[in-house]
């Protein structure tokens, strides 16, 4: 039996980003979540509408059969045309959680000319072991106990693309949020699959209505265009994080991640080199 096609607005929490997804172009290129890939996302604030506040560029390269390297560039817009820039290189296992074994990251706040603001640059490296991670900079290191299995929040962008497209036993793990914040009791589970119309645009429709004293023109909004896509959704719940829902397409490509009033939406502009 054919699955009925639904609208974005029919699906929590995609409904909260519906306006941002008007005209969304469904990717058509082949995609292998186990291979090399490169994707860009716009970061959106949903508190007051749907406001783009930064971008995330993420690249994965296979490093043999059992490992991969994920590289990140993240930029957040700040007041005064400043921005926070974060870069990272993460060595991962090619396992369900993209378990990180070693990573480096840098962070700095740049002024409106792109120069780092004094005292804001940071560079750290980390190694992950079975029960702890060790985070170090030029001068010292810090050991943080962590219960395995664990992963990084942005490594999940890689991991969810290889999850089964059907119900599975929920995956329990510890998350290292933003590289160093230990958040235990995380669960990743299958939510649902659905046929969803993507790329619809709201269009004005005019029609005339005959009233007793004359004819008036009425305007209504309707959704037009778009293409159906088979999407699969996964829930991520846990301590210290809002509930996140990840949406991947039938090839496994992560299209959208929505957590409360924050969202990452696949950005075709950035893929074309036109993103922020």
């Amino acid at each position, binding site marked *: 039996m054919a699955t009925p096609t639904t609208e974005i607005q029919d699906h*929590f*929490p995609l*409904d*909260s980003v519906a306006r941002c997804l008007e005209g969304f172009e469904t990717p058509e290129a082949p995609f292998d979540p186990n291979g090399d890939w490169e994707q860009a996302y716009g*970061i959106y*604030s*949903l*508190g*007051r509408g749907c*406001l783009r*506040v930064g971008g995330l560029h993420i690249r994965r390269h296979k490093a043999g059969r059992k490992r991969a390297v994920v590289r990140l560039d993240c930029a*957040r*817009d*700040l*007041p*005064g045309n*400043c921005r*926070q820039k974060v870069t990272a290189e993460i060595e991962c296992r090619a396992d369900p959680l993209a378990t990180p074994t070693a990573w480096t990251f840098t*962070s*700095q*706040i740049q002024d409106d000319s792109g120069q780092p*603001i*004094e*005292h*804001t*640059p*940071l560079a750290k490296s980390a190694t992950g072991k079975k029960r702890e991670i060790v985070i170090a*900079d030029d001068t*010292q290191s*810090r050991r943080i106990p962590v219960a395995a299995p664990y992963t990084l929040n942005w490594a999940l962008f890689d991991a969810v693309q290889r999850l089964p497209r059907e119900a599975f036993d*929920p995956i329990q793990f510890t998350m290292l*949020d*933003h590289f*160093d*914040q*230990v*958040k*235990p*009791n995380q*669960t990743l*589970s299958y939510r649902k699959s659905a046929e969803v119309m993507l790329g619809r645009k709201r269009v004005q429709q005019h029609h005339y209505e005959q009233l007793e004293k004359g004819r008036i023109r009425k305007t209504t909004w309707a959704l037009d265009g778009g293409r159906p896509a088979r999407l699969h959704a996964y*829930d991520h*719940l846990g*301590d*210290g*994080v*809002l*509930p996140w829902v990840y949406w991947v397409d039938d090839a496994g490509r992560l299209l959208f991640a929505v*957590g*409360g*009033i*924050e969202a990452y939406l696949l950005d075709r502009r950035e893929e074309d080199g036109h993103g922020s």
Partner: protein
Amino acid sequence: MAVDPRTQEAGRLGRPSRRQFLKTTALGAGALASGLALGESVPASTPGGSAQRREQPNFLFIVCDQLGLDAIAAHGCPDAHTPNIDRLIRRGVTFLESHSTNPVCSPARSSLFTGCMPVETGVITNSRPIHESVPNMGQWLGEAGYETVYCGKWHLPGGYPSAIEGFTVMPAGGGQGDLVDTVVSRACQAYLTNRSGQAPFLLVASFLQPHDICYWAINAKTLVPETLPFPQLGGRLPQLPPNHLARPRAPKQLDEKIYAGFSEDQWRYYLYIYSRQVEMVDADVGRVLAALESSGEADNTIVVLTADHGDGRGRHQHVSKWYPYDEAVKVPMIVSCPGRIAENHRDATHLVSGLDVMSTFCDYAGVQPPPHTLGKSLRPLLEGKDVEWRQCVVAETHVVGRTVRTGQYKYVKYEGDPVEQLFDMKADPWETKNLYDTPALADVLEGHRTLLTEWNQRLKTVPPTREFGRPHYRRTGAHASTKGTRSPEKPT
């Protein structure tokens, strides 16, 4: 003519006015206005001199937004895991009778950063600047030789301005806590890692969480659907508070402001989200504390963690703040500095206020607090000394409301409203029974009215400052009186 007791006290102690203070220092108005550059040392001729400066501790002032006192695990919350704030509590003193001066962002913050009540700072509602006659913490401690750095939410009036008088600002975003707080904690971590100056520092890490919970009420239609969006949470959702349906008789402005749109499941989901946001800010607090420990300055840094106000959390069917009930008024006040002050001590006796941070910092810095502050230094309490303490704390609400909290009772009066409130906070901590018309408590009621009158006489009010984005001052009945009004001064 009534004499302001603080003026008397200031005179008795030879306490200088800010103008006098500035005149006696080597740093002039230019430095005051621009703040000090990061890492820049201060000339030795500032108050106290170099010998004093070596003894001046650093201050790490952590401000959370909308964090209720009992939203923390170590304070009894069963729904949130807050290992970092809990650790801070174990390493210091936590005040369990800690009260906001006004459970709204800007007014409460104006008190935290000046030691004055909102009617004395001119910030009687959100998005107003501190009156120009009132020095802020950055200006005051900057003059005393501190490197003063601010990162995060300000809201006096701008939420995340690129400049704050008296502070060097590290830009860190804005809008919503889930996006901005990690930038704030990372910037503070970087500052603590990279700073090189010899001057003691005042670092303000001002986080926005769990304030994001406001959006779960504002955007309830999409964020809190009628059908629980994550059914697997079922049994893990927090229970409703015992006073969820309590509706004690209240002044009209309070009675009108309940949030009646949620089902029980929606309320419990709202509480679940709030606790996650509390955990998010806990993680950012943890990052800053870890950086402080790694910096080698932890033993010489006094850490204060507080909040501007709490959140309704379904108590009295409230979301958000504004109310004189404890869910909005009571906030954490945690002070830690291992080796200097008591550790793992819970103070459930002394009534403390957002007013007290400024006086406490000044006390430890070895400088006089600004004149006209009603705040008290917490230092003797932190060091286990037996001192005479205040009888009450006062909070402002809805511009015309005043709350007087004594050891056992809470009294609420809204100007022009015949309904008052009196709660026995020992017998009825959830504030369910308004006892104001109980004949046996007539003397208690009258006593609290007198306390409020005396309190009002001590205030040095200023006209409300101009609300950001509004063309004119909004004057209200609460500020019609000119008695004790501080005349606006030009910046020195």
